[in-house]
Every structure is written in C-alpha cells, then in structure tokens.
C-alpha cells in the first residue's frame, strides 16, 4: 500500500511537470524556439499568486482570473519579439536564458531572495486531501493532475480538429509551404506563445499552492521539465502529458522501493535507455 500510495502521489504530481513542460514543448516543436524564459513566466505567475492571495485575500485558485490574461499577453509579446528579432532555434536558447536571468533578478528585487509562502490562513489547499479510505489524494497534486488532463487534452483536440490547429501543425512541418498556402505564421506564433503563457500561469499557481518560493526555484525545474519534454517528444502534447505522469510515478515508486536519493539516478538512467530505444521520444509514434 505504501508503494501504491507513493506511485499515486507521484502520478498526480506528474500533472504539474506536464503542465510546466507543455508550453516549452510546443514552442520548441512548433515555433522552433527553446524558450527558457517560460520558466520565468511560471515563476512570476507563482509570485503573483502569492502576492494576490496574501495581500488581497483572493483565493489562490481565483488568482488565475488575473494571472492567465497577464501571462497570455506576456507569452504573446515574448513570441512576437522572438519573431521580430529573427532569433534562430539555437540562439533562442541563449537569448531566453538571458531573459530568465533578468526575470529571476527582478523577482529577487520585488519579492526578495528569501522564501515566500502562502500561510495556511490564505491557502487551505496546502494540507488538504481527499481520503478514499485506502488511498489519499492530496488536493494540490490532484488539482494539477486534473487541470493537466483537461488543459493538455483540450489543446491536443484543438491542434487536431480545428483549422488553427491544423495550420499550426502545417507550419511546424514546413514553414515555407504553409506560408504559400496563406498561413500567417506570425499571427499564429503569437497566439501559440500567448497560450503557452497561459499554461505558465496555471503551472505557477499550482506550484505556489504547494511550495515555498524563492527566485532560484526556476533553475531547479530545468532537469525534470526537460526530461519530460524530451521523453514525451518535442512538440507532442499528449506525449508530454504521458511523460510527466510517468516521471512522477516512477520517482514515487523508486523513492519508496529504493530511496528518495536513488530517484534521480534511476529516473535519468531510465530516460537515457528510453531515448536509446526511441530517440524521438517515448510516446511518439514512429512511421516506418
């Protein structure tokens, strides 16, 4: 039962990893931008959640009413700037890392480098759980799981079944040909960047619900989130979701069966092995 409980909580936490990774994966896969500043948007969203809840007494989940539009605009503006400056895929890594450093420094100046955390009085979700008798579902990770399923599942449907989604996929496959068919890649790119910004707002809120914040937290997400992006297949939303859940569950099981200290080792060994077998991602269908 201990192993099952750990696998479950890990799986639920995997929803947060998937949400964090989704925006990064899509901008990388579709727009050819490795946008490390996405971590900065998540960080700022988490701080805004903290700020709005602590100072204004707003329910942390309701802060999305503010943070989603703000990050939608920020994400769109960021993509507009990348596009206008003609930043290549490789250069985007450097440029967006610089942006991330700036965002982290600004966060330090605004909120200090010290730990900031929503008190129990404004954040009742941190210690809440749904108890089914045999298994316990912590509310913070349960929310992350459900939102990830809804958000990523919905986005996948949009990409598959709408004209805009098909245009984006066409653009990802071949920009020139897509452009010849009248697809406005700039407008589409800005829209996609904006939606990715919105996912950052949700991920930031979910992170702030369960964790203390320091500006340097943004760097701690790199390893796991990149693992999820690569494992899920760059640009593949459902793969990202599956990879997030897989990474979370595997870490939970290894933590109990071996040791929490062994979890990163086993996880990254598994990822290396998986990529040796399926280099384009564990959850990407290969066409023969």
């Amino acid at each position, binding site marked *: 039962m201990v192993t099952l409980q750990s696998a479950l909580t890990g799986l639920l936490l995997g929803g947060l990893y998937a949400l964090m990774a989704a925006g990064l994966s899509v901008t990388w896969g579709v727009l050819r931008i490795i946008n490390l500043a996405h971590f900065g948007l998540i960080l700022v969203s988490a701080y805004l959640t903290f700020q709005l809840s602590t100072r204004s007494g707003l329910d942390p989940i309701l802060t999305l009413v503010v943070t989603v539009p703000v990050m939608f605009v920020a994400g769109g503006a960021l993509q507009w700037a990348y596009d206008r400056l003609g930043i290549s895929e490789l250069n985007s890594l450097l440029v967006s890392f610089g942006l991330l450093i700036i965002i982290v420094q600004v966060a330090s100046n605004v909120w200090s480098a010290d730990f900031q955390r929503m008190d129990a009085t404004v954040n009742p979700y941190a*210690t809440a759980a749904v108890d089914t008798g045999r298994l316990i579902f912590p509310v913070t990770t349960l929310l992350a799981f459900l939102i990830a399923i809804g958000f990523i599942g919905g986005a996948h449907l949009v990409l598959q079944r709408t004209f805009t989604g098909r245009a984006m996929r066409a653009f990802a496959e071949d920009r020139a040909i897509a452009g010849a068919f009248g697809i406005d890649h700039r407008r589409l790119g800005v829209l996609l960047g904006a939606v990715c910004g919105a996912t950052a707002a949700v991920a930031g809120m979910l992170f702030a619900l369960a964790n203390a914040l320091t500006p340097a937290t943004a760097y701690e997400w790199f390893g796991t989130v990149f693992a999820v992006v690569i494992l899920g297949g760059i640009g593949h939303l459902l793969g990202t979701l599956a990879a997030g859940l897989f990474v979370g569950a595997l870490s939970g099981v290894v933590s109990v069966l071996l040791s929490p200290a062994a979890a990163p080792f086993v996880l990254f060994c598994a990822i290396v092995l998986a990529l040796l077998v399926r280099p384009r991602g564990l959850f990407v269908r290969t066409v023969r």
Partner: protein
Amino acid sequence: MIGLGTACESKSGTDTGTPAASGAPIVVGSTLSLSGAFAATGAIHKIVGEQFVDQLNARGGLLGRQVRWVVRDDESDQAKVSTLYEQLISQDRVDLIIGPYATPNILSAMAVAQRHGYLLPQHTSVLAPLMTYDCQFPGWSIGPKPNEFVPNQLFDAVASLPNPPVKVAILTNQNGSTDFVSYGAQGDQTGAVSIAKQRGLNVVAEIRYPPATTDWAPIAVQVRNAAPDLVVNNGIGVDPVNLLQAMAQLGYKPPLMFSLFPAPGPPLGLGATSDGLLSVTIFEPNKATVDKLGKEAADIVGEFKNRAGAAKLPYTVFETQAAASWTAWEILAAAVKGSGGLDQKALCDKLHRDGADTTFNGHLTFDPKAHNFWPPTQAIKQIQGSDWVTVWPADRAAAQLRRPGS
C-alpha cells in the same frame, strides 16, 4: 581598483562624543550569495553586514578610519567564490576579508585566505573537522564535534519530557551542511543514527533524500507507517515545511519533530501543523533573553527588523543566522582593535591570545587545536504559538519544552 560588484560603502556620521574617523577607509572584502540557491540566507547576512559597518562607522570606525565593505555576489557558486576572493586579495588588495555564506562557499574562501595568510572570520560553517585553517574564526560554534553535539543535545532535551520518545525516524538531506549530523564526516561515522542506537532508541525509519527533492509524499508515507515518537529531520531551508505538509495531506502529524537548519519564517505560516517543531538556535530575541543581554542587543534586534522590512524580507526577526553574522563581524573588529593594526598574522595571534567579546555569545576563546571552535552556545528552540522560543538547555530557556498541543 575596487569598483566592481555590489559595494556597500558606509559613511554615516558619528555619534556625538565619538571621535571622527579620518584617513583612507579600511576596506573589508567578501562575497555573499546574493543570487542562486543560497540567496535567501545571503540576504540576511548582507543586511547584518551593512548594519554592523554603519554602526562601527558611527562610533568612529576602526583605528580612527572609516570602514568600507565591498561585497560581491558569488551567485551561490563555489567556483566563483575562490575567484572572487582571489581578486579581492590579489588585485583589489583589500585590507581585511570576512567569510561568505554557506559551508561549501566558506571552504572555498578558506583555501584562498590560507594561501594569502589572511584572517578569515566566517559566519556559519560549523563543520569543525573541515575548518583546518588556524586563522579562520567561526561566528557560530557547535564545538569540535558537531555531529555528536547536535544529536546528544536533542536527545537530552526530549528525554526530559514526561513520556520521552522511544521510536525515532531520521530523515537526512544529502547536503554538505546537514548530512554529517546524521552520519558523521572525515572518517568519524558518529552521528544522529549511531547515537540514537547507542542511547537505546529504536530507529524505525532512516531515509536520505537529495537536496532537490520535489515529491515529499513517499517520505511522508514511510514515516507515517513507521509511526515514530520523534522525527529527526536533518534538513535545511523549507524541508520541514514540505515534510509536515506532505504528512498533513496524509492526515498524519508526528508526535514530535526536529529540523536542523530550517528557514525560520515558513514553518510559522503552517499554523497548527508546525506547532511544537524543534530546531537549533544560537539566539532568539525572546523577551527574557533580550532583557538579559541589555539595551545594545535590543537596539541591534530592532534596527535589523527595520532594515529587513525595508529589504522586503518576509521574516524580519534577528535570530540564529543574523547572530552568527554579527558575531563574525565582532570577531573581525576585535582583532583589529586589539592588535592596533592590519597585519594579518598579528590579527590572528591576537584572537588566539585574547579571544573576542561578542554581544550574543559572550566572551569567545579560540583554541587552534579545536580549529578555533569555541564551547557551543547552541540551544534548542521550539515553535510555541506563533513564535520560535528557546526551550533547552534550562539555563538558556525562555519557555519550557513541551509536546505539541499540550
């Protein structure tokens, strides 16, 4: 050529009746982790350093000269610490240095200081066996064997309770600043685990976790199932908050929990979940303690609160980290005043010979054979209500140690 980095220059006016400082300022160089993983605590040390230098200059400086502190951001990167201290000493030719924050960084700075023969007062490295340079002087001491002192003091404290714990879970962050308290260091494997067993305690869970742990549920589940009377969390930062929260999600709260080096503010925000949490301290501004130390200590505590508030720190209480920092600065000032000059060997000899008077730790004596680690003044604190309160040993306690909820 001092101009790069964050330079904190203090030219405060002097108090009435104190001699005005003249001549070129004495320059103290250091790094601090103002960004990166250690920045949360680095910010405390920056405020304390600025406050100390301002106060020193207001009282006439050192040797009749103003003091200027040049502090650079080492970005919590051990490799940068060495380079920056090398620059401070070799290129900038600072008169004095003081340590950075966090044990790994202090070890890097110590190597540079030793190569140049510089005096190195340092704030927080308590890992005595590794601090082998004769002219490093700690501002926080857990004695020559911290891996024995901390567990023994904790187990002594909880043994004084009416129903002392029998079953213990030991959870250890594999961080260089915490792991040695559970498992020893430098060939000495004595630590909380072995000491608990020696004392007849039943170690029902023993878990090591990496510093970047994000999923706390597996640890919480194992602890809940082991049902210990006491959880010893040799962790750092927000580890105890994450653990208590994960355990609360499972509907479980350990009867008693200790955490080694927690960030002091976040646990208080947990409300009843963290009530009764134990930790170590060298100073808490509890009224009884401050009254005993007198007006000077009260003024320092009050001024720090103002400055920390202005710097937007969420927790503005002058406590262990701040007291350790203040003590390190007092050691530096005592060496200069006592030796009457800036010769590094003379400064070091002076401290070995006469020690240093400090506000929060009294008169300190430094024995090179003990790597200058003075007899510990460390105590045990506990969250009672909405504050940290010193509870052990009895002669330093501001309140009685109690079980949560009692």
